[in-house]
């Protein structure tokens, strides 16, 4: 369920420094998120799809992520043409479709897919551990990045504990329905998970104290970006500037 399979690989994307990738991903996704032209968003999707292709993702996983985002887009396509307020409309048999709504739905679909591709190519190719350290180097407060890294570490332990409790309920004939009993059972399962993670928190804190922790988290040095990383950064920034430039042009769509 929780996996990081995209991060295992050895393409040039996997080898890049996480800091460089974070900046690149931020730049490209901000430009894409803010652009209001279908043409620019379309070009953005093509460019990010190329990046994604170069990072060689596993096809079936890729498809799963793609589906997740586009189920939401489907909702947009169903609602916006019917509900979008104002502007011209188009009669389609008995339906009154808003042209602006259709345009908006198309724009959102392109943007969200472009950003997904960029994320998969740039961020999902690093492990969470590396991204956390990258963020810290980029000025995110240390307390926050440690929070991120520690909870990342514990996530799996807690999820496993929850699954074991859930299994116990299943063995005793628990079948989820729409009933108070069901909601109470989920609450108990989650409540017990919470109690166990609380107590584990105490034990792990003791482990930190035993290793001399006195309230000051000292990070290890992280590897410095190399020439290839700077070149990569330059390329990503160039792409985002190009897209930004295009979206400033007076385009009709």
């Amino acid at each position, binding site marked *: 369920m929780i996996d990081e399979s995209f991060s295992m690989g050895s393409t040039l994307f996997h080898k890049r420094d996480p800091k460089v990738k974070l900046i690149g991903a931020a730049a490209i996704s901000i430009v894409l998120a803010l652009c209001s032209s279908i043409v620019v968003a379309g070009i953005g999707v093509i460019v990010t799809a190329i990046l994604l292709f170069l990072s060689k993702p596993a096809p079936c996983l890729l498809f799963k992520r793609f589906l997740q985002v586009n189920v939401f887009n489907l909702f947009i396509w169903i609602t916006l043409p019917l509900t979008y307020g104002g502007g011209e409309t188009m009669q389609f048999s008995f339906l009154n479709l808003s042209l602006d709504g259709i345009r908006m739905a198309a724009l959102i679909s392109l943007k969200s897919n472009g950003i997904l591709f960029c994320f998969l190519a740039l961020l999902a190719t690093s492990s969470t551990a590396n991204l956390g350290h990258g963020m810290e180097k980029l000025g995110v407060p240390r307390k926050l990045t440690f929070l991120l890294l520690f909870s990342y570490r514990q996530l799996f332990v807690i999820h496993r504990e929850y699954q074991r409790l859930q299994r*116990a309920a299943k063995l*005793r*004939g*628990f079948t989820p329905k729409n009933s108070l*009993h069901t909601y109470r059972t989920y609450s108990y399962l989650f409540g*017990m998970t919470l109690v166990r993670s609380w107590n584990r928190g105490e034990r792990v804190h003791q482990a930190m104290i035993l290793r001399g922790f006195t309230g000051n988290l000292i990070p290890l040095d992280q590897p410095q970006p190399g020439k290839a990383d700077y070149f990569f950064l330059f390329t990503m920034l160039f792409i985002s500037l190009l897209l930004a430039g295009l979206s400033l042009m007076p385009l009709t769509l």
Partner: protein
Amino acid sequence: MNMNPPLLELHNISYSYPGQKNPLLKEINFHVHKEQIGIIGPNGSGKTTLFQIIMGLLKADDGQIVLQGTEIKTEKDFFMLRRKLGFLFQDSDDQLFSPTVLEDIAFGPLNHGATPQEARDISIRTLEKLGLKGFEDRITHRLSGGEKKLVALATILSMEPEMLLLDEPSNNLDPATRERLIKILREQKLAHIIISHDLDFLASTCNQLYTMQDGQLIRCEEKQIHNHEHIHPYGNQPHLHGI
């Protein structure tokens, strides 16, 4: 189908975890009528995995599970099977999730259609049977390790199973609770399969022994008595023998 089919049969059960090269379980064949069976075997040999397959928590790559002459295939079949076979986990903390003992024990009967009053009665009766009278309103999370194990057993017995699968039940029990558990299992007279590293425990609770080795379950023909030497690092203290 004959008049008196075995309680549980396994036919050619094979299993490997995703990514494993060699199968962990290789065409296991096995049946239980009303025996009390013990399984020993090295760590990681797949004993727990076998239990999980029987209970339908993992799906065998190959083979059939037959309960009282009926093949168990669908999730609905397993729902019935889980009522008839009670599985005691190695770690009781994974098995107890309700705030109070009574709620935890009543959980199974309620899911199988008992009314709240019936469930309460069954639970109290089960507690009494295990010598845990008065435990109803104790907070499960705060029980001692041995008490947790007995309550976990109660949550299973309250479903009135026809067979028990016990995964290392004597682990981490103090000697008194261990003796109590042996007594309970003997009185219960249910068919059971016990995984344990504790041979003495198995000898007192089982009448058949299997070893799990190289993916196979091998019957040990008969009990043998033999002699050998020990180094006893604490010979001058009262002590229990592993065997």
